[in-house]
């Protein structure tokens, strides 16, 4: 039985054991935006932030938009995986690892945006040496550090049994690497108990940390008195948006690697159907929050707020605003309401549309308010230069490259969890189902 399982799961180890031509093509392709980003950053590093489109009053543009976007995407993993794990959703098994990896990768990319936005990266030392906890920016630094640490731990712990499989299969230098990381895993019952307990603690811990991260990101805006930022619902609004974009990014990653590594037997249309339904629910929730946020501002009709409001609806930012509505609400609604046929294609279309829509949403939050500030600064429209475009392209390329490299070292689907599902899952689900149902009344036929 064990041998049959091993042979059956060989496909999950294939990308680690062999490197095909596709891998090199992918790396070459991703190198283009990464090199563009590196060039853009080096120009900015030597010339200063003057080479960007940032100015007064718009001092936050693409970089802060990217920061909020990437930190939002990070909710894909840990939060979704933790919720599915805690609710014992059996269909989670092939998904959790992919989700957790997204979190870890984008957190580094997201946090890196702040370094880029600083212009002079050595200024980060000011935060470390003289940071003030009255500033929401420092709350951000603290909560992102906690989330990064928790996410790395939460990714690593469930990987230990899979790392042990690799340790036992592979030779050479890689054997040392996997032997160290496997921490002496031999799969005894006591070891399994220790690991399960630790994963359960992490799953509980990581949910409030994840929620706090995006709430705190929103506080960077809402703690100011700027028009259309000073809002009490920004915390939950940002969290909803983050989970929404996170699910979309997860679906896109799943579909790409399903195709590239032939994972169709593991990632079935039913997984995409469930995730698609979740995406639809989040789309409706996002629309509700957006509607509530804009209606409240409109009803108040405060002159400074209305300036920003109309700049989004029919002013210079209208293409971004309506693009956001199209991407986050209309297209997902059309694609996801009926998932009878072409499930994967429809879910992919909706997810790509949400990823673009959510980036526009972050842009539409950051830039219009700064363009029409409450204080009597000169008003000004922001337009990015090639430097910001390059850095943005480089960030996306770097994220994809990190993700790809991860799949060359570790299985992208948790092998032991799949095996556990086959061996013990069915019985466990049956027993659990019986406990959900009403007890049979004695003597009644």
């Amino acid at each position, binding site marked *: 039985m064990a041998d049959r399982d091993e042979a059956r799961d060989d496909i999950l180890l294939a990308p680690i054991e062999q490197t095909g031509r596709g891998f090199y093509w992918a790396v070459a392709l991703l190198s283009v935006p990464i090199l563009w980003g590196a060039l853009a950053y080096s120009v900015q590093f030597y010339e200063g932030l003057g080479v960007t489109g940032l100015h007064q009053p718009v001092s936050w543009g693409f970089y802060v938009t990217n920061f909020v976007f990437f930190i939002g995407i990070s909710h894909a993993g840990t939060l979704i995986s933790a919720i599915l794990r805690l609710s014992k959703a059996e269909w989670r098994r092939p998904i959790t690892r992919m989700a957790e990896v997204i979190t870890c990768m984008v957190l580094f990319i997201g946090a890196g945006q702040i370094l880029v936005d600083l212009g002079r990266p050595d200024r980060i030392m000011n935060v470390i040496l003289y940071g*003030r906890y009255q500033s929401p920016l420092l709350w951000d630094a603290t909560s992102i550090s906690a989330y990064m640490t*928790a996410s790395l731990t939460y990714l690593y712990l469930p990987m230990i049994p899979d790392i042990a499989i690799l340790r036992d299969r592979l030779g050479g230098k890689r054997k040392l690497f996997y032997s160290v990381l496997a921490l002496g895993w031999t799969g005894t019952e006591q070891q399994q108990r220790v690991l399960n307990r630790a994963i359960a603690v992490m799953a509980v811990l990581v949910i409030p940390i994840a929620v706090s991260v995006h709430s705190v990101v929103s506080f960077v805006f809402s703690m100011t008195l700027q028009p259309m930022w000073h809002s009490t619902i920004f915390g939950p609004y940002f969290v909803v948006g983050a989970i929404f974009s996170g699910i979309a990014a997860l679906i896109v990653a799943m579909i790409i690697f399903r195709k590239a590594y032939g994972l169709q037997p593991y990632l079935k249309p039913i997984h995409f159907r469930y995730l698609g339904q979740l995406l639809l629910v989040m789309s409706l929730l996002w629309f509700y929050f957006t509607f509530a946020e804009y209606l409240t501002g409109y009803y108040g009709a405060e002159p400074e707020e209305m300036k920003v409001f109309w700049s989004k609806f029919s002013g210079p930012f209208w293409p971004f605003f309506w693009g956001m509505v199209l991407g986050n609400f209309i297209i997902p609604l059309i694609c996801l309401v009926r998932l009878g046929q072409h499930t994967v294609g429809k879910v992919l279309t909706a997810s790509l549309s949400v990823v673009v829509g959510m980036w526009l949403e972050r842009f539409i939050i950051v830039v219009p308010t700064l363009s029409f500030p409450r204080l009597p600064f000169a008003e000004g429209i922001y337009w990015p230069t090639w430097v910001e475009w390059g850095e943005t392209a480089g960030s996306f390329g770097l994220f994809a490259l990190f993700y790809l490299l991860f799949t060359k070292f570790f299985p992208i689907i948790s092998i032991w969890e799949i095996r556990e599902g086959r061996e013990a899952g069915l019985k466990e689900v049956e027993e659990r189902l019986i406990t959900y149902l009403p007890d049979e009344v004695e003597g009644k036929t």
Partner: protein
Amino acid sequence: MELPHSDFERLVRTLQWVWLGVAILLVGGIIIWIIHLIRTAWALDDVPSASIAISLVAIPIFIVLMSVVAYVFWGLRTHGRER
């Protein structure tokens, strides 16, 4: 050239301790940083209550994270069997 079995095992064990050390150093470093910010706020009389309030939440979280890693490290070492 492959190392003899016992040397290999010793190297693995040493590197595992180094790995744990790095993890503790990372989390410990963040805790020390937070304490440094409280001390700075205190010395400058710059609303230290805010720093203390936030660190009352943050520091225990980092300690729990470190404890989980140490628990797994120790638990797997002591409950393994000969391969």
